[in-house]
């Protein structure tokens, strides 16, 4: 073989050897184990720690919240969808409670033609008068209409019970003679059932009402509610209220979603405010503000109200006509 060809072959062989040794040196251990890639990288990727922990993780501590949430409409929205990923919680600190719920909730509930029709949607401009959603809606149990109490009372029996027990304070026709006690005539029956039951159970307390309600049977409560709901709410206009009704009207925009524009409630679960006694209304609002009366929705609404605001609101609602009676949904 000619010398130059031998040299060339030696050179080529050396080159091949260097190449193969280099490849052997620089190729990771696990390369080619399953194919043309590094098998260790699969294990590395699989070993990364999850950031989202799932609602089951939250359940281990927040048991009551979990029960409430999983029984209501938002059960398909996991804890971490609103509160953020739970990695490092609770060791590293609390998870945020979203402050701007109007922004957060509208991500899913702002009305858009693109969304499926089955999705509950609102017109942001017309709903809730710019208030935060969480003021009225509990994010863990968002539906409001579910609390309508059943009413199946006998008005005649209620009339008898009324004459025996209630008439001395609340008036013969359910129109109270005193400004501090509420008119009951024309009040929503479902609301009356709920509130009387609360006095009876002790969920709500009042020096006068608690002992009265404790003597009532469930049937009495039903009968009374049916009786009062059927009475005419027309009442003589009481003496001039302390507040400014015009200023109250502006504030009442925030209450309209539940209590109606003039205090004629749209849902039987909520009380009529139109034509109610001003002093009673003011006292009740103050009781909510002080936490003496407990209601998650009202607590949020009254938090920012001053004494003057309360007086104005009371004056506004007291001056409204309770007629026409609202079209209250039938409860069977």
């Amino acid at each position, binding site marked *: 073989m000619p010398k130059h060809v031998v040299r060339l072959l030696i050179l080529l062989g050396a080159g091949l050897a260097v190449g193969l040794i280099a490849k052997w040196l620089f190729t990771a251990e696990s390369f080619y184990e399953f194919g043309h890639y590094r098998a260790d990288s699969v294990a590395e990727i699989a070993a990364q720690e999850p950031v989202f922990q799932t609602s089951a993780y939250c359940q281990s501590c927040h048991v009551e919240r979990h029960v409430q949430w999983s029984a209501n409409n938002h059960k398909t929205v996991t804890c971490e969808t609103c509160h953020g990923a739970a990695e490092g919680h609770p060791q590293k600190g609390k998870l945020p409670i979203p402050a701007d719920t109007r922004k957060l909730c509208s991500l899913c509930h702002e009305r858009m033609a*693109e969304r499926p029709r089955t999705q509950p949607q609102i017109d942001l401009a017309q709903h809730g008068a710019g208030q935060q959603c969480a003021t009225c809606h509990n994010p863990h149990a968002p539906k409001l209409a579910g609390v309508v109490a059943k009413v199946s009372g006998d008005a005649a029996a209620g009339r008898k019970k009324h004459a025996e027990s209630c008439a001395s304070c609340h008036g013969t026709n359910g129109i109270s003679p005193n400004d501090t006690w509420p008119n009951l005539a024309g009040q929503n029956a479902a609301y009356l059932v709920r509130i009387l039951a609360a006095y009876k159970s002790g969920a709500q307390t009042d020096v006068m009402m608690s002992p009265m309600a404790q003597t009532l049977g469930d049937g009495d409560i039903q009968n009374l509610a049916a009786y009062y709901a059927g009475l005419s709410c027309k009442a003589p206009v009481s003496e001039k209220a302390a507040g400014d009704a015009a200023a109250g009207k502006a504030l009442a925009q925030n209450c309209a979603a539940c209590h109606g524009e003039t205090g004629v409630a749209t849902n039987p679960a909520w009380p009529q405010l139109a034509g109610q006694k001003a002093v009673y209304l003011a006292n009740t609002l103050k009781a909510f503000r002080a936490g003496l009366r407990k209601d998650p929705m009202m607590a949020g609404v009254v938090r920012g109200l001053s004494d003057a605001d309360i007086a104005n609101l009371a004056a506004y609602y007291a001056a409204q006509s309770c007629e026409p009676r609202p079209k209250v949904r039938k409860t069977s």
Partner: protein
Amino acid sequence: MKKREAIGALRARRLFLRRIGGAAAVASAAAAAGTAGLVGKAAAKSGAAAAEKSFPTPDYDWTKRQWAFGVDATKCIGCLRCVEACKVENEVPLTAHHFRTWVERYVYLEGENRPRVDSHADPVNIAASGSEREYRFANRYQDAKVEKAFFVPKLCNQCEHPPCVQVCPVGATYKAKDGVVLIDHEYCIGCRYCVQACPYGARFFNEEKGVTEKCTWCYHRITKGLQPACVEACPVGARVFGDRNDKQSPISLFIRNNRVQALKPETGNEPNVYYIGIDKAVS
């Protein structure tokens, strides 16, 4: 049908060439005495791994699963919780233009034949969210006459025949045995061929890390028995995930009970994301 046959023929030819190439490599390696260690090493290791334990983790055997993903566009409300969840879970840069999953909006206005398409990365939608770190669809069609409109969530299709894997020059991306296409960030050289190769735009380049990224169906979650973060975060069940080997898994039921379709079937990639409720403008 012709196209399918052509693709099949191409694939057969590719396989043949690969085998020829493999045989030649083995022959030359054997010929070069002393350099056969490479083949021997790999062969010994794979044999040991298969016999002993499950791979890639002790609790998870990738040969037992065949993952697939379903998207029900009739349920999607465009809230973009999936996009935010994905970013948090996978440390995706918090800008509007880096994302592993995204949602598109298709709106047909009255008198128009083609849909108007936008995603969370559209300037109007960035303005509506107020920040590139938060995502929301602007209510930009509220005063328009909308004839038909819907949202379509998108993500990596984890194709049966992934073109991105085919073009990678360094073996940094590959198809795992359970069906997921993964990226080895140690080996990725950031050449971005794969970004170009993907017909779905599912890959992006992470400038901070100098590597390509894409959806892995949250491989670190699914190998631990969890759902991908986007599926976890979806409030309406528009995203479905599961194992096709399990005939009662959500995805098996989803595929069996619906007339599903895949995106760009004509490419022959055979995507593993199944859609319902989209129309022909979606690709």
